């Protein structure tokens, strides 16, 4: 409301006028609040509803008085019989007058009523008018439970399901899901399908980032039987290619969840002689996503050269000179988390030191091997050395019911997975990634129990989550911020044939744009992975706008790539409103009537600059920099300016993508 008032005013007058309007609005709301909810004298109030303000009174304003505000009404609160009772100064004033109190008492009450009215009103002014909604409290409503969702499964619910668990879906897939119903859709989504057919192409991309047929493809770039002979960038592009083309969209979403939220690792940690470790790590992620076996995932991490030995310094963890980096992140990020649901530490520094000793013993050795051409090349391989391993028995989780004696990393793993925090910590991350950002302790415990009941096998857990009330509840809708990968893979899901403009290839364009948005897979900023809120923050606002505009607005690339905008995006559109509704629905963007009107104007008018040759004197009077000239949208193939209708449809899609609605899932 306030925003709208401000927006109606111009220039320097704006601030003053808007403040007046702001005050008026607030005054009215105070009165309304007073009418609706001002408590009577001595009314019991919830302490949470009371705010306190301090005012200065007396000559020279040297004294201060604390005033309590309830519904913006000033007064005071007194404890009585274990409750808090509120009396307004207005009520007190009436009482004092009835009681013929002294002029000083009446005067003080009058002053406090007057000062308090202003102070309470100011204290109720929201600090961020553009964001009127208070922090959403945790909710325990049935709607946010893990109980089976029994409501209708329409396109809306299908879009939520695919948007959160599968990087989105094409329109055809959404319709198929609606016809199938929720259960069948979940079954289909979580049934692994062979994507071996992609292997050849992925290996080709991993070699030099290009596919056979690309103008820069070099078929001899990689040497056979040389495990380090591939491109690190190609490994990342290959992963992008896999996610774009594999039918296993849920499994690949799970892969990115593990890669991002549960110990993120960067390919740059591997030296040239051990580049193959990047491919090994990719294999680790693919196996974990396919099997859903979380305990095995962490066991594989313990043996991982890239993640454990390089990225987290396991190769420097010697029994005589321990390095605790991996031991710390194994617990903090991979398993139990640093604190429990009540904020109590789960482990101590001594536990960590003991765990690090149990993990010690890994080293790296350079070996010579021969490639397919018979040439010798160096490769660094991991090796376990009992001489470097700390001897003895170590106690972890000491002094807790989960205390354990361990001697090696497998025993640390076993002991850790006996700790209930592993499931709770995992449950927290799953809830915040797939359901909503405000899980309650009760829901975490419930989901954690489900994880334990399934022996840390994630697929049955995820099926339960996918079919739960909590995912489809109104409170959860549009509450999760999309990652750049959600935006990019999601866009490609909507328009499967789309070619991302780039001077190189569309796959490079895809990767380039995701990097612009701050997310390059296999190159996380830290072991904590990416922070989607930061990536949706101010530093990336322009980037996202530009990615949307450039992907859709580079006409030459569309032609070069033979992407047929008309066939893919325009055909079937009958009118401007039809296009707006079609794409708002498809991109899951909720529009107000005013926004629809704006888009309709975009489609039916041309922008004319007053300085150019099309100058229309009437329209440019008064120094207007431009005016709009009506040119009705016409998608008919008979339209001589058919290309303008293509532009307009592309523009509508770009405008929708730039809305905050599109950034949320």
């Amino acid at each position, binding site marked *: 409301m306030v925003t709208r008032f*401000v*927006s109606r005013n*111009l220039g320097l007058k*704006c*601030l003053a006028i808007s403040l007046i309007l702001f005050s008026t609005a607030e005054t009215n709301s105070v009165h309304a609040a007073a009418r609706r909810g001002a408590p009577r004298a001595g009314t019991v109030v919830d302490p949470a509803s009371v705010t306190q303000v301090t005012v200065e009174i007396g000559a020279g304003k040297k004294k201060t008085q604390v005033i309590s505000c309830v519904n913006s009404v000033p007064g005071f609160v007194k404890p009585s019989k274990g409750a808090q009772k509120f009396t307004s100064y207005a009520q007190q004033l009436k009482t004092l007058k009835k009681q013929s109190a002294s002029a000083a008492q009446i005067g003080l009450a009058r002053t406090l009523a007057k000062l308090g009215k202003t102070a309470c009103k100011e204290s109720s002014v929201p*600090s*961020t008018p*553009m964001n*009127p*909604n208070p*922090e959403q409290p945790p909710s325990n409503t049935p709607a946010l439970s893990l109980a089976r969702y029994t409501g209708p499964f329409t396109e809306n619910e299908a879009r939520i399901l695919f948007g959160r668990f599968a990087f989105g879906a094409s329109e055809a897939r959404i319709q198929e899901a609606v016809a199938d119903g929720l259960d069948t859709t979940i079954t289909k989504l979580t049934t692994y399908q062979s994507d071996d057919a992609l292997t050849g192409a992925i290996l080709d991309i991993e070699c030099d980032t290009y596919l056979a047929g690309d103008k820069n493809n070099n078929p001899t770039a990689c040497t056979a039987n040389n495990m380090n002979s591939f*491109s*690190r*960038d190609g490994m990342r592009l290959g992963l992008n290619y896999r996610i774009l083309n594999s039918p296993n969209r849920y499994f690949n979403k799970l892969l990115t969840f593990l890669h991002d939220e549960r110990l993120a690792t960067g390919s*740059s940690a591997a030296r040239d002689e051990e580049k193959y470790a990047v491919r090994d790590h990719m294999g680790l992620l693919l196996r974990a996503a396919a099997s859903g076996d979380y305990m095995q995932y962490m066991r594989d991490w313990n043996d991982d050269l890239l993640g454990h030995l390089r*990225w987290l*310094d396991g190769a420097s963890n010697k029994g005589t000179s321990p390095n605790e980096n991996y031991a710390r992140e194994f617990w903090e990020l991979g398993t139990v988390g640093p604190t429990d649901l009540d904020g109590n530490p789960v482990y101590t520094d001594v536990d960590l030191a003991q765990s690090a000793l149990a993990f010690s013993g890994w080293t790296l050795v350079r070996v010579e091997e021969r490639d397919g051409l018979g040439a010798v090349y160096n490769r660094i391989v991991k090796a376990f050395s009992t001489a470097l391993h700390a001897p003895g028995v170590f106690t972890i989780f000491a002094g807790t019911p989960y205390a354990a004696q361990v001697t090696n990393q497998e025993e640390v793993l076993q002991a850790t997975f006996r700790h209930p925090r592993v499931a709770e910590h995992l449950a927290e991350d799953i809830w915040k990634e797939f359901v909503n*950002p405000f899980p309650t302790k009760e829901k975490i415990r419930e989901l954690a129990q489900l994880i334990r009941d399934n022996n840390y096998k994630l697929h049955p857990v995820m099926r339960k989550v996918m079919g739960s009330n909590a995912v489809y509840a109104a*409170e959860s809708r*549009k*509450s999760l*911020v999309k990652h750049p990968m959600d935006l990019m893979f999601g866009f490609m899901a909507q328009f499967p044939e789309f070619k991302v403009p780039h001077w190189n290839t569309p796959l490079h364009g895809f990767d380039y744009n995701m990097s*612009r948005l701050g997310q*390059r897979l296999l*190159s996380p*900023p*830290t072991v904590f992975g990416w922070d989607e*809120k*930061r990536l*949706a923050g*101010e*530093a990336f606002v*322009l980037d996202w*706008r*530009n990615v949307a*505009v*450039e992907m859709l*607005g580079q006409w030459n690339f569309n032609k070069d790539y033979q992407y047929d905008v008309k066939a893919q995006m325009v055909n079937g559109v009958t009118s401007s409103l039809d296009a707006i509704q079609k794409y708002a629905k498809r991109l899951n963007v909720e529009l*107000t009537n*005013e*926004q629809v009107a*704006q888009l309709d*104007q*975009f489609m039916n*008018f*041309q*922008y*004319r*600059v007053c300085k150019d040759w099309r100058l229309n004197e*009437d329209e440019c009077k008064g120094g*207007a*920099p*431009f005016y*709009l000239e009506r040119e009705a949208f016409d998608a008919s193939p008979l339209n001589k300016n058919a290309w303008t209708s293509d532009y307009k449809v592309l*523009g509508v899609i*770009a*405008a929708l993508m730039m809305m*905050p*609605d599109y*950034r949320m899932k």
Partner: protein
Amino acid sequence: MTTNFARRKLLKNASALTCGGLLHSAFRPVNNWFAWAGPGSERAAFSSNPVLIVINMAGGASYNVAPLFDGTYRDKNKVVSYGPEQALAFAADQGIHPSLTGFKTVADMGNLALLNLVGYPNPNRSHDESTDIWFRGVRQGMNSVSGGWAARMTGQLGQMFSGISLAGSNLLIQGDVNPPRAIQSLDSLGEANFLGSDIGALLRLTRDNMMVAHRPPPNSEFGNVKSQMDQVQASLALLKQQTNVTLPTVANPLPQNMSGFQRACRDAATLLAAPALQTKFIYMERGGFDTHSDERARLAGNLTDMNAGITYLVQVAQALGRWNDVMIVTMSEFCRTFENGSRGTDHGHAAPMYIMGGRVAGGQKSPAPTPQQTAERDFYRDHSVDFRQVFYEIVKSMGLNADAIFPEKFSFTSLNLFN
């Protein structure tokens, strides 16, 4: 039929965004696009108003930007190298590329420092990954440090335009607290064009009107995302206002049809002329240095373009009386190998690096590679100066906490870059 409806909307939006911005500024913390602090609120520790301008020669620039005269090097680089008769004079064993005449002028003033064999441990020869290392400022234990060093730098400064990228967004400027703003250019304020100028303008107008007409955010997460979008728009309006300045006329003006890099230099000069913005970090980029073939012609073309832009920037800084504030530093993700079979060079490692500015103590700050180093392999794998050493010394000279900006330990010996 015509209408002015949209214009009214535009004005309405402008007022909502600018006045909204002013309203917001009363409520927002300092580390925010909205937190506008006027002149005079600068940290007292600064005796001047230093500005670090980083110019990335993207693609991996050849050592021939600072030609080596040693015979071993010349023998290994028969086509692409330059002798003392071709290069601009600088030192007995090393010159300045003949296209960099403006650099030579600065060198003659005693304000150009040249560092040799700049790199980092365990070289990585991938464009992306080596760029990441330069941008992040971390080589080992990269998991412990988030974002780029420039973002950590501007995070300490706290003004909304403390840092500006005139080359889009990248890891260097990504960070959690007050990162540099990626605006691309002052003409576009970061807005990419859509198809044509008219339809692009209409799309921006439509988008801005749609933001004003947006439904109330349904939850706090949504509200935060929308709020950030609104804030950016309002901040850009303020930036436009502040950079509406006329630059002084200089001896070597930029051509009418300036290149993208030259436009970035013009914008950097404009930012120097807008001290109220308190910009202390500017990032620019010039691509095309991945010279696998035909290096000689391509390098000359790239450096001619760069020279025109930087010469103009230097002259404007001098005319504005800000030459002593400016530190212009070139970087590249890696250097290159010696000549290959295509009269080009491939990916290498340790590189030369230029630093210019009124306070810069000129000269060769680290020795040119020896004939033995050149003979050892086909590129300079071993560095003698860690790149972080250079930037560490610079940010420290600006009164910043350099240890927080470059938290990873590395070998450090003062390079005595400044007078």
